[in-house]
Structures are given as C-alpha cells and as structure tokens.
C-alpha cells in the first residue's frame, strides 16, 4: 500500500489521486509547500496604511511590470492586465501562475503554488499575499494575508525565502 503524503490515507500501489483529499500522489509530497523554520524568515509585520493605500484613484492604463529574481538575476516583463499571480506551476492540479518561480529556486525557497498576486489600481501597484505557507515580505516586513499593500519603485519583495525586486514604468 502507498500512503497519501497529505492526509495519510492508504491506497493501492499505482493509484494516482487520493480519494480522500484529492492530492496527486506521485508528487503529492514535494508539491506541498513545506513550512520554513521561523528564524529563517523576517519577523516584523508591515503596516498597510502607512504608505497611502487609500489614495484617490487615477486613470488606469496598462503598465509593464519588471520582476528581477534575486538569485538567478532573471528578469521578467509582465503586462498588468488584471492581476498577476506569483507561485509555482502545478499542471496536475491546474495551477498556472502568471509567473512561475519553480526555475528560480521557488520550491527550495518555500514558495507556495499560489503565493502572491500583484494588481494595479489607479496608477499604483499593490501586492497581496494569497494565503501562502511561508508568507510574503515587503522590504523585510511580513504582509498580512489577503490584504493588498502598495508597491514602490524598486521595492524588495520576498516570497518565503526567495528574493525579488519589482520595477515598473
């Protein structure tokens, strides 16, 4: 028998999906985002109201967002059409983030499959943690999940342990 890494239910060998929790068994383990030890992550929390999240909205236009990966130095240009999801691709579960961080060391860095999203409102950009396992950090401060936080030019963003910087024009 094989055991579901997520819920522990026993299955016959060769089974592909756990009937109990729906996990894809061949990769069910590593696909899960492992929680990182607390001391490896920054401690303080960010205050969403500090940098003017409530400012008046300006006319919206499609802008380009540039994400630069800290470790690999890879740069990605993305048009902000509605929302940009950051995470790790998992085809088996139909999770297709706009920006897949698997190749940039996302798994080792504790990036969740659905980690964070960036959207534009008025002429400002906002980043929001979407319930990730290891948190999203803005300039070293942990964001409260599901609370959009304004982004500034050149802000340092950290998903789990993976560092990125964000630029836009």
């Amino acid at each position, binding site marked *: *028998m094989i055991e579901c890494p997520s819920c522990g239910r026993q*299955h*016959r*060998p*060769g*089974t*592909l*999906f*756990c*009937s*109990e*929790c*729906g996990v*894809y068994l*061949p990769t069910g383990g590593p696909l899960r985002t492992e929680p990182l030890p607390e001391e490896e992550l920054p401690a303080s929390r960010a205050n969403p109201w500090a940098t003017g999240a409530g400012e008046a909205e300006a006319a919206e236009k499609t802008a380009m967002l540039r994400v630069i990966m800290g470790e690999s130095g890879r740069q990605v240009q993305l048009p902000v059409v509605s929302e940009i999801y950051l995470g790790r691709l998992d*085809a*088996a*579960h*139909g*999770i*297709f983030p706009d920006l897949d961080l698997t190749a940039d060391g996302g798994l080792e860095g504790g990036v969740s*499959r*659905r980690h964070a999203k960036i959207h534009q409102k008025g002429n400002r950009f906002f980043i929001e943690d979407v319930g990730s396992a290891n948190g999203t950090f803005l300039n070293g401060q942990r964001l409260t999940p599901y609370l959009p936080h304004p982004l500034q030019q050149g802000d340092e963003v950290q998903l789990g342990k993976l560092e990125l910087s964000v630029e836009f024009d």
Partner: protein
Amino acid sequence: MDFDKDYYRALEISHTATAEEIKRAYRALARRFHPDASDEPNAAERFRKIQAAYEILGDQRQRGAYDRKRREMGLLPTEDAALAWELTVSRQTLPCIKEEQVLYLMVDIRPAAAMGASRLPLNLCLVVDRSTSMQHGRRMDQVKAAAHQIIDDLREGDAFSVVTFHDTAEVVVPAHLGGDKIQAKAKVSAIRPRGGTEIYQGLMTGMQELNRRRRLKAVNHMILLTDGQTYGDEQDCIALADDARRQGVGISAFGIGEDWNDKLLDTIATRSGGVSAYIDTAARVRRLLRRRVRGLSKTHVQDLKLTLRFHESARLDEAFKLSPYIQRVDTSASDRLSLGALEADRPLSVLLQILVGSQPPGRQRILQLETGGDTSIGGEQGQRLVQELWFHCVENLTSESEVPANLVSALGKLAIFKMQENAYDALDIGDTNKACQKLEVMATNLLARGELELANAARLEAGRLARTGSLSPTGRKKIKYGTRSLMINDTGGLR
C-alpha cells in the same frame, strides 16, 4: 500527399495501427535505413520514403484525409473503417509485487471516417410537462419555441411527435413522417399549462408514439422536459426506462428550475442510454434542446459496447464515461460495458480503473479490449476493433515513467466528481458531518483548479449543511451538474 503511394506499406504496418505503433515503426525503420549509418542497399531512397510516409501518418489530421481518399479510391478496406480508438495507460511497465495494483486505462473512441451525407433518420418524441408551474418564468413559451425549432429542423424521413402530461397524458402531435410542419407547430402553440406532474403517464404515452414509427435503422429517442417532482410513480418510470433500452429507445431528461427530482431524471437517462441535463433558466431551454437534437442526428453508433476480457489475476474495478459529462458506467454485466451513443464529431472517452494482481516478470498480457456496435454507415455486422494489451513486468521498478498529461488531468477531475458522489451518498444516509467535510475538501480542490464559481457553491452549501442539515435545492443541482461537467472545457481529456 500522394494518394497513389501506400504509406502503410512503407512503414511496414497495418492501416489499423495506432498512433503509438506508427511512431514505433517509424523510429525502428529510420534507425535501420538512416543513410549515415546504414549498409542496406538503397538506404537513402528507403529513408526518404519512410520520412514521407511518417509525415502523413504521424499527423492525425493528414492521416485522416489520406485514409478517406484512399478509401474512396478503393485502396483501403472499408469494413473496419467506421471506428478508431486511442488507448492511454497510466504505466507501461508494472512492478512485480504481491499486492493488487491500480492501472488506469483511458479509451478514446471516435468514428474513423467522416460520415458525409449518410445520417440515420430520427424518430423523436418530445414529452412535455404542462403542469401549472410551467407557466413560471415563461418556461412553457421557451419550450414551445424549442419545439418549433425542432420541427423546422426535421428532414425527410424523420418522425416526430409531441406528448404533454400533467396528471394524465395526451398526444398533441401524433407520430408522423415529414407531415405538415405548420399544422404541427400550431398544435404545439395551443398547449396550455394545468394540473400536477405525473411523469410516468407522459413517458408511457411517449413510448406508444415512438413505437408507431420505431425502426431498427433509426435513432429512436424520447426527450422529457419537466420542472416538477413526480409522486409515487418513480419505480414505474425506472422500469419503463429499462424497457426502453431493450427496445432501442433512449430517453434524455431535462429538468427545468429547481424543484425536479435530479436522482430520478438521472436514473431514467442512464438506464435508457440517454443523457440528463439541468436547465437553470428558461432562456437556456432552446439552446440545450437544439444541441441535443443535433447531437442525436449525428449518431454514428447507437449503443457502443466495450468488451473487456481479462487474463488471470486482473479485473475491472470502476469505469467512467467522460463525455458528454462524467458518468459512472454500469459494470454489473462485468465484461461488457454499454457506452451509449457515439456522435460523429465527438469522441467518446471512457476511463477504466483496473486492478492487476501479482504478475511474473516478463511481457504479460493483461486484457483484451473489443469495441463495436451497429454504425450508421456500416453493414449489418457493424464494426469491431480488437486489441490485446501487453505490459512489461519487472522485479525492481527503478524509474517511474511519466503519466500522460491527459490522463492525469482527467483523473484529477474524476477525483472531484467522486468526492461529490461521496458527499451526496453520505447525505442520503443522514451523515451530515461527512457530507460537510467532503464538500469542504471539494471546494479546496476546485479552488486549486481555478473553478471559482463551483468552489464557492460547494463552500456555501457546506456551511448551509452544517447550520441547517440540508442543501438548498439550487445548490444541490448546481454542484452536482457542475462537477460532472468539469471535463467539458478540458481539451486535454477530450482533445
């Protein structure tokens, strides 16, 4: 593409070869005759021919065009031309282990050749609920408009009838062959809602009308439209559905609004070999009905059978039809599965969950598959495809090969479908806690797949269930019919 050339011979394969076999043959031959490596005489010439053949046969669409033309030219045998299939397995190599292991097999069956002008005549009966509730939200108006549309679309040789029912049933348009369309439409227009709902009356009268024009070489089908519960005659309805299948009549059941009995309609459809559908708003009646009638008129095989002959120590565990929506296939007749109608332009996918017992090392035969049924263009004999499935069995399986993506995608959706089944089964026996938990897990899985609306419905209903002990009638249907339709937008599973 040169239709005078025999590409199959160039690759030394039969014209019934699967895509996989073609690829394998091409690789082997290309290695043997590669001009850089081969000492064979005329290697370059042979290599060119092999290349040319694979360019056509390796491409599904080009191969289809080539086959059609060759068939027209009489260069390809036609007797096994009506069906084609593709088999996908979760693993090609099995580990030799004592305990039973699971093997998934997806079978995609499609008509091999374009059907062209040939089309089975229709023998249709529309059975319409005309209880007072049908007045609601212009339901009856929409049904009438849909019936008019069907009448307009009828062709020479088609038979059509309309039966209405409330607590009794009456024949509004008797079964006739290409009769007076204008008169038939006028009669439909005159239908007025009244009384309660007794489905059995309607079905029985519908069967009588169909039997007046029933032919072997025709699509004999009843379409039931209702918006209400029926009381006390459920068992009679199910018995009639079984009877209908024996007589070659399928019943498609459409439920409008929220108050109808989804279990009964699903059972009627499944037992008779038809389909069931949920129509949430009256505005969708016309489109769904028209699509159904179009599908019927494209029937290629009326009742496709899949026969499984297992070798020792392997057996069938479960079987699901994936199109037009996810549906459990009755496995009580053990090796012979009834798959219902195969439409001309829509492949039929079946997913089999097979249990394989302990196998000795080496190349082992696990099962033989056979599919067939009377086709609209085939002769009396119909058409069969047979294939033996072999697997490599090894003592120590070190590297696991990748599971084909379309199979993974289909199984993932099937897992959600099964959770829904489990939740509703738990609900039936009053286990609210379990049902709640299943709905929650479903919601999470749906969310992970980006099925936001359905996930939301599941989460909402889980909350309602915990508070009140029951689902809302709308939520119940939304989740059930949404889940089984997960496969529809998926190009991976159905291509």
